[in-house]
């Protein structure tokens, strides 16, 4: 009976060769799911009775908003592992996740604002979700800025991990306070729950797009982590062998 070595892929040397095929596989899956999701969302799904065609931005907006929060949690999870076990690959994963998380947050904000114009008549309402999403973007940017500011990668790993953990503890409090602030300051005149009963086809399109966003994230993060590994392990013998072979 052989026991599983859980830490086999915790070392960049053994993790690196696996990532290429994984990244490619998830990239193809993301493209297929995005194509199917967009076809369902833009062509198959019917026009909304109240909002017309404008609602179709939901198929980008909602998956992006989901990913923006989910990625922060995953990033904080890797940060915690990197601090607790002093595992540098975990820190690299956290580092690789941040730009994609910030990207999805920005997409959620921009699409939300574009959707707000036809739905609410304004590009920006101080809606609780929009406001907390904006603060989430600041948290991502702060995390990335702190990493950038520290030259020593090991110190950058650990300092940004502490920041990510402080951020993830604060995130629910920030969200709760913004919701509370919002209900205090304006009535329920603006509501995001526009469609009380969503047609099954719309829900299906949204879920397929959510999977596309997941697979895209995995593919991009693995590709980015490959680059980070090569950059940070450049003095290791296996990296020069890899570079020689790739030439």
């Amino acid at each position, binding site marked *: 009976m052989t026991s599983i070595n859980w830490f086999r892929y915790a070392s960049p040397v053994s993790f690196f060769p696996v990532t290429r095929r994984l990244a490619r596989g998830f990239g193809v899956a993301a493209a297929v799911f995005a194509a199917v999701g967009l076809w369902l969302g833009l062509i198959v799904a019917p026009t909304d009775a109240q909002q017309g065609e404008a609602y179709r931005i939901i198929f980008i907006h909602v998956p992006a908003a989901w990913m923006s929060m989910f990625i922060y949690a995953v990033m904080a999870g890797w940060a915690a592992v990197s601090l607790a076990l002093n595992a540098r690959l975990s820190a690299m994963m956290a580092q690789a996740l941040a730009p994609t998380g910030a990207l999805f947050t920005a997409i959620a904000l921009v699409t939300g604002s574009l959707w707000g114009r036809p739905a609410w008549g304004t590009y920006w309402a101080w809606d609780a979700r929009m406001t907390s999403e904006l603060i989430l973007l600041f948290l991502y940017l*702060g995390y990335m800025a*702190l990493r950038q500011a520290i030259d020593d990668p090991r*110190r950058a790993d650990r*300092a940004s991990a*502490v920041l990510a953990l*402080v*951020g993830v503890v604060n995130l629910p409090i*920030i969200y709760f*306070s913004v919701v509370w*602030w919002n209900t205090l300051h304006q009535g329920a005149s603006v509501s995001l729950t526009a469609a009380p009963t969503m047609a099954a086809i719309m829900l299906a399109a949204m879920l397929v797009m959510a999977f596309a966003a997941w697979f895209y994230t995995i593919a991009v993060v693995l590709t980015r982590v490959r680059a980070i590994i090569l950059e940070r392990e450049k003095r290791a013998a296996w990296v020069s062998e890899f570079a020689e072979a790739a030439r």
Partner: protein
Amino acid sequence: MSALEPTSPGAWPGVAWALRRDLKLALRSKAELGVQLLFYLIVVTLFPLGVGVEPTMLRALGPGVLWVAALLASLLALPRLFASDFSDGSLEQIALSPYPLPALISGQILAHWLTTGAPLAVLSPLLGLQFGLEGHEAGALVAGLLLGTPTLSLLGAVGAALTLGLARGGALLALLILPLYVPILIFGAAAVGATHAGMAAAGEFSVLAAALLASVVGAPIACATAVRIALD
């Protein structure tokens, strides 16, 4: 670690020692303390110049303006918390001392709050007058600031420790810490607003107190970790 420290002194003497030391240091450079209060005063003064002196509008803006200015003033004072100890090596000695590091840092943060946050809270009713706040609203403002500014100091200390010795640390610190200040701003300003509307602000004060208790427990530990990272 504990094997190396067979006779580790308790946490409370550590807090007291660091508090006494930092208070003494702060009181020997009184000019620096004045600068932060003057900054608060000037930022608050700029708002009526920018938005006009309509009394009803000023009264509506007052709580938010005073709280935002308090946030900025607290941010301005943060780099001083560890920077000089870091540059002259005392922070390293503090980290090496047998006292638990979170306890020493708690003392330092407490001293920092006593010399920055507390005077600011005491000064604020005076500025509230300029915005036409009534007596009980000014009371809610002071109570909120007294409950909220220690949390700002505690959260800010984590950011100050993370950015120790970095180029352009000040602007970076603002980016790291201001988003985390959001809940304190919301509930602090809302407490004054609720009092203005004639409602009890007990809920807001409870949330501010809860945030304070949570950060008293969590922030010194995060801060000690960050200081050790910076000293590595």
